[in-house]
């Protein structure tokens, strides 16, 4: 009989075999956690040629180590401690930094514990091919495991573990290279402990680890590449050195932040409020935080109250008494203009007081003139940071901050980097490459922001390229909006069909898996209508009369879910990307282009898999019934909007295809009429089209507004119809997890200002009680003299609204499902699965609801759906902003091109008045700009007017909604090389334009 033994580990060894710790849960309970630990002897050292270790998998460390450092001619291995990774990740990631690294498990776990983003970067680094990193599981190795002794802090224990592992490696290397008697001893590579922690180094020396080094010194010893690597060194690097006494003498400029635990306690108790910090677009000394407790955002005025918060940080604020509440200032304060004389090197010293005085003056001036009757907002100050959201920022080097004495020298100097985004403060960084970096777009990360330092300190990551070169600008846009743009990896491409672009719909034979439950619609007269040059065609349409007098209409959507299976690498990547991003001259795909532009794209004359929604409609466009089915279609034609329009209007043509388009068009008109009657809004946003000279050079030559044709609305109506029908279907089937889209009605307070302006300037009223009422009153906003006035009001009204969002049907109450803009009780996105991930999720749910497949477990989980939709919502917003920024950049380029030939003058509308300027909107170019005035114009905030001395005689008064003519120039900002549209008033002529 087989003897069964249970190898129970004696409790007597619990001290060694168990790791226990306490954890405080989010709900404030304390739990004790126990982990079993099994120590083993077969943890490999990772050094090639080591016969003592058993290695499974690839060995990454060369047997002799690296000989690049001047200090170690016999070769060396580097063992960095945790802080090196926490502070110097950019250095570690650099391609120039390539000594063989031993990454200890202790370090890896500590990094994960301290910062998840850094941990993810570290994991990616371990996997990357060009790094020589060996992960040594020292906690599981019987000779390197350490047990915490009484009263030892976790930090000390980890440091001890690291030192023990280093010592083990040193002795292990002697074992690998034994000295054979009679032979000259072989050179033994050194094991170097890389740490900036002085104490750790001292303890190490006491324990016999002779070789430890500060990061900076070590980088110095690398010789060749050191100057490039030096810039990557984070400012945090040498601060652990106790010798840096300079710091302590400096005067604190900001109040200290409270420790996180105190902050959280305060937030929980309701004394502090937590929210995202939003810097003001117009005034660098003002920011706001939206919190749940106040209906209006809390205003933070002045540097001291903003207390080192950076755009996007999650901060905790304290709100002042109500008597201190203030209205935001209607003044534009530009950082560059106000702080021109700031010097990077000694801004901490003498310049200080002067600066403070200057800023205080600005603030007080504002206060003095601030209107007493304007709506007050709560004010407050930042007392602590809950979470920093720092990332790499695209910047320019401020050329004036370069000290003139070494304008060309390669010595290290401190300079200012001005971020492209106006919402960010400038960043101080030390670099040796300053002269070379001028005129370049560079990537800079913030390392820290001390209370003693006016500006955050950061370090240079890499250069993106010359300012205004298209590649650099494009990449900087993508980086700035956090768009993932790397090419798809191998794991993702492996998920594509192995046939590649020769994949075709297999012939229809019984039992073919592709044809299972698929309808054969290859004979239907289906066509697609898209913008010109469209490659990813994800929708196609058809319509035909039925014998009973009704009309059958079908919308056919690319069957992306046939190719993208849940939870494989391609799906995960698509979910993370969320959406395809369209730049003016580039598309960042969500799915590999083989799918997007070929296999899924419903191109004409080829058979494609589709997901069809087919309605039976009465001639009055009432839905008789709808069904959904997977299908195979063969599109008969791919129209552009214009072609379809021409075809429809051509009376001579009477073929089936043309009839189909006409039928669709007539239905669409009825659908639209009904939608409008239900209270749908006809919104406007400035959309312009960039004319590129040719596909290759992509130099913009002109900008024009997009034209809307009847066929645009044809496609739109049917897509809306499909989305609504699908939304109903999946909500019925999966009431808890259906992926839907909604548009919440805007709070009436959002419209207050616009209503006030309209009433005072034009005597018009805006009824915002419902979307129908708003639509009706928007129609009445006409000015006979200004035909574009209506569009302008619509644009402004659109800005008052909330943005639509995806949501999971189980997580909000049923009565908030509605889509305000479309006046539909329920809505989703189904029609563009190639470029939107939400549609892919909807496709899966729809397929499950018609019994085609079973629903993947993740789509049954409310949590998972919510989490995915959060990502998609964010990506979606970012993609829109990226697209807009890209258009702006090209408009700028086009203007520059035009401006070289002639002066660009355009009509513009005033949309906002400031105390010292006007916000204007140039509808022809779809851009907004600021016109600033010197001196003290008379500003009437009540009536939204600004009165200026005229150039000719007397005074001119300019009010919101007035039409003016502006002169548009693109000029490079002298300091930052940032391309900037500046506008000056031409008509009416005024005396002091800036």
């Amino acid at each position: 009989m087989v003897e069964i033994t249970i190898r129970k580990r004696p409790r007597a060894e619990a001290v060694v075999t168990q790791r226990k710790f306490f954890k405080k849960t989010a709900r404030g309970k304390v739990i004790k956690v126990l982990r079993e630990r099994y120590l083993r002897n077969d943890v490999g050292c990772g050094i090639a040629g080591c016969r003592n270790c058993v290695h499974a998998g690839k060995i990454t460390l060369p047997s002799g180590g690296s000989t690049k450092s001047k200090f170690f001619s016999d070769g060396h291995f580097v063992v960095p401690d945790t802080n090196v990774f926490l502070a110097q990740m950019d250095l570690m990631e650099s391609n120039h930094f390539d000594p063989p690294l031993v990454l200890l498990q202790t370090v890896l776990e500590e990094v994960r514990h301290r910062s998840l983003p850094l941990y993810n970067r570290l994991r990616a680094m371990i996997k990357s091919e060009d790094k020589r990193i060996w992960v040594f599981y020292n906690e599981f190795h019987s000779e390197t495991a350490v047990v915490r002794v009484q009263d030892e802090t976790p930090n000390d224990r980890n440091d001890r573990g690291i030192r023990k592992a280093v010592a083990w490696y040193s002795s292990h290397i002697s074992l690998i290279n034994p000295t054979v008697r009679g032979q000259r001893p072989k050179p033994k590579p050194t094991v170097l402990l890389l740490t900036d922690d002085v104490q750790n180094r001292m303890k190490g020396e006491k324990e016999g680890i002779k070789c430890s080094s500060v990061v900076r010194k070590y980088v110095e010893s690398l010789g060749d590449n050191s100057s490039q690597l030096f810039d990557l060194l984070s400012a945090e690097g040498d601060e652990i050195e106790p010798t840096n006494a300079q710091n302590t003498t400096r005067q604190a400029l900001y109040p200290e932040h409270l420790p996180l635990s105190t902050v959280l306690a305060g937030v929980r108790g309701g004394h502090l409020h937590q929210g995202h910090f939003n810097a003001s677009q117009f005034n660098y000394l003002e920011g706001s935080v939206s919190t749940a407790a106040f209906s209006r955002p809390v205003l933070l005025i002045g540097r001291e109250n903003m207390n080192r918060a950076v755009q996007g940080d999650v901060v905790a604020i304290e709100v002042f008494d109500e008597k201190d509440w203030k209205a935001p200032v209607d003044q534009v304060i530009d950082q560059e203009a106000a702080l021109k004389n700031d010097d990077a090197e000694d801004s901490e010293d003498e310049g200080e007081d002067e600066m403070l005085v200057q800023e205080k003056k600005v603030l007080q001036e504002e206060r003095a003139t601030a209107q007493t009757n304007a709506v007050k907002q709560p004010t407050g100050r930042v007392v602590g940071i809950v979470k920093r959201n720092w990332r790499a920022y695209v910047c320019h080097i401020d050329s004036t901050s370069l000290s003139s004495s070494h304008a060309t020298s390669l010595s290290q100097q401190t300079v200012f980097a001005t971020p492209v985004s106006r919402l960010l403060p400038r960043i101080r960084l030390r670099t040796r490459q300053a002269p070379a970096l001028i005129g370049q777009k560079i990537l800079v990360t913030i390392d820290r922001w001390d209370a003693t330092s006016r500006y955050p300190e950061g370090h240079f990551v890499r250069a993106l390229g010359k300012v205004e070169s298209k590649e650099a600008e494009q990449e900087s846009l993508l980086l700035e909006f956090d768009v993932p743009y790397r090419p798809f990896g191998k794991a993702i491409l492996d998920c594509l069909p192995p046939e590649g672009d020769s994949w075709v719909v297999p012939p229809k034979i019984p039992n073919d898996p592709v044809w299972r439950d698929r309808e054969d619609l290859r004979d239907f007269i289906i066509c697609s209508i898209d913008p010109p040059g469209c490659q990813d065609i994800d929708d196609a349409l058809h319509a035909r009369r039925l014998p009973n007098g009704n009309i059958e209409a079908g919308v056919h959507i690319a069957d992306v879910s046939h190719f993208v299976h849940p939870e494989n690498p391609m799906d995960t990547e698509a979910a993370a990307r969320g959406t395809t991003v369209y730049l003016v001259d580039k598309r960042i795909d969500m799915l590999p282009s083989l799918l997007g532009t070929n296999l899924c794209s419903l191109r004409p004359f080829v058979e494609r898999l589709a997901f069809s929604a087919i309605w039976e409609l009465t001639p009055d466009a009432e839905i008789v019934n709808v069904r959904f089915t997977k299908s195979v279609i063969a599109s008969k034609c791919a129209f552009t909007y214009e072609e379809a329009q021409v075809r429809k209007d051509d009376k001579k043509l009477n073929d089936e295809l043309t009839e189909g388009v006409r039928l669709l068009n007539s239905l669409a008109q009825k659908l639209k009429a009904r939608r409008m009657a239900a209270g749908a809004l006809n919104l406007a946003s400035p959309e312009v089209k960039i004319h590129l000279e040719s596909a290759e050079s992509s130099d913009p030559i002109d900008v024009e507004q997009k034209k809307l044709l009847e066929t645009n609305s044809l496609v739109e109506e049917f897509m809306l119809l499909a989305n609504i029908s699908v939304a109903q279907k999946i909500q019925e089937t999966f009431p808890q997890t259906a992926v839907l889209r909604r548009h919440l009605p805007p709070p009436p307070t959002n419209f207050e200002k616009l209503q006030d302006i309209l009433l005072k300037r034009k005597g018009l009223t805006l009824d915002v009680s419902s979307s129908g009422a708003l639509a009706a009153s928007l129609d009445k906003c006409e000015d006979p003299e200004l035909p574009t006035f209506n569009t302008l009001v619509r644009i402004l009204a659109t800005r008052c609204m909330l943005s639509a969002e995806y949501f999971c049907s189980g997580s909000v109450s049923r009565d908030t499902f509605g889509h305000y803009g479309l006046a539909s009780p329920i809505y989703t996105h189904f029609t563009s699965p190639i470029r939107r991930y939400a549609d892919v999720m909807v496709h899966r749910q729809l397929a499950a609801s018609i019994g085609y497949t079973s629903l993947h477990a993740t789509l049954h989980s409310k949590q998972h759906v919510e989490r995915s939709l959060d990502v998609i919502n964010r990506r979606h917003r970012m993609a829109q902003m990226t697209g807009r920024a890209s258009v702006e950049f090209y408009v700028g380029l086009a203007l520059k091109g035009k401006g070289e030939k002639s002066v660009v003058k355009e009509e513009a509308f005033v949309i906002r008045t400031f105390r010292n300027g006007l916000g204007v909107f140039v509808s022809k170019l779809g851009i907004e700009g600021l016109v600033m005035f010197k001196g003290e114009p008379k500003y009437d905030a009540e009536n939204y007017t600004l009165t200026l001395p005229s150039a000719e005689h007397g005074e001119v008064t300019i009010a919101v909604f007035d039409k003016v003519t502006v002169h548009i120039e693109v000029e490079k900002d002298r300091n930052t090389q940032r391309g900037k549209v500046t506008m000056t008033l031409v008509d009416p002529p005024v005396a002091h334009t800036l």
Partner: protein
Amino acid sequence: MSATVSLSKSEKSYIRTALGELSPIRADGRSLLDYRSIALETGVASLANGSARVNIGKTAGEESGSGTEVIAAVKLEVEGVLEGEGVDGGRLMCTVSCSPAAYPHLSSAALDDLSYDMTIILNQCLSHPSLHPKNLVIIPKRRSWLLTLDVIVLSDSGNVYDALFLAARSALCDTKVPKTRSVQYQPKSNALGEQDVEMSAEAPASIFSTKEVKSTADFELADYWDEGEPLDINQEWPVCVTLNLLSAKSLPTYFLDATSQEEAAIPLRLLLLFSFSPSGTRLQSMRLMGDGEIQLESMTQLLESGENHARKLFQALKNKLQEEDFRRNQKALARFDLR
């Protein structure tokens, strides 16, 4: 109180007569004041904050089921005072459950009754205010620890109360309270760049000011790896001595550590719970069990001799607990280092 075994009259009389002899005879050959061997181990439940296992009268060579065996474990839980869960200063709750295996002849209802009786005795004694540890406070008036002491009787072959309190005391002595640091946020009265900020912040808050109460409080763990510090009244946790009274005469004879059979044969038991602290000895609780009666005069004498026995037991337990502590920490570590 239901005895754990039932004996016939003649059996009872046999045992009683043997014990009442001038030179008393017990079935296992002990003298009247001898204990059976007591085995003690602490730290038996790794996930508890303190635990112990006690066995009285285990016969050598037998694996389990012999003797009286009791396991006690202490668990600490955070309670909010304002939320109405706990009380300021923390509280202590004891529960005893009897394993059906220990009392195979009892119905489940009777077993519940027995458990309940034991719970009452343990709880009334240990959660008495005179024994309240002061370090169960996390944040005054806000948060405190709830200490739950759960004791399981695995087997009973007599003298279960002594075992119960031995285990309880050992588990409580073994208990470590995680160190916490209170985190408070005190809103400043005014802050917008005004000069007197410092002054107002430093002004001492009077007792009557609402500031103190309004300031929010939470806590964090001082060291998430550390077990913490022991309860501050470690030495005072009482020990129990059960005097088994043979007769109700004016000069009662008693014996210690009765087996189940002996318990069934005698009319009266006296439970005495003594707490020994530097400040003096306290009788925490006492209880008479059985259907016999006793003269008041003899109580003084019994108390005196009870205290002596309790002191010896206390001393022995103290030594053993120290030994246990050493075994679990230093020795294990030393062995680890020797590898």
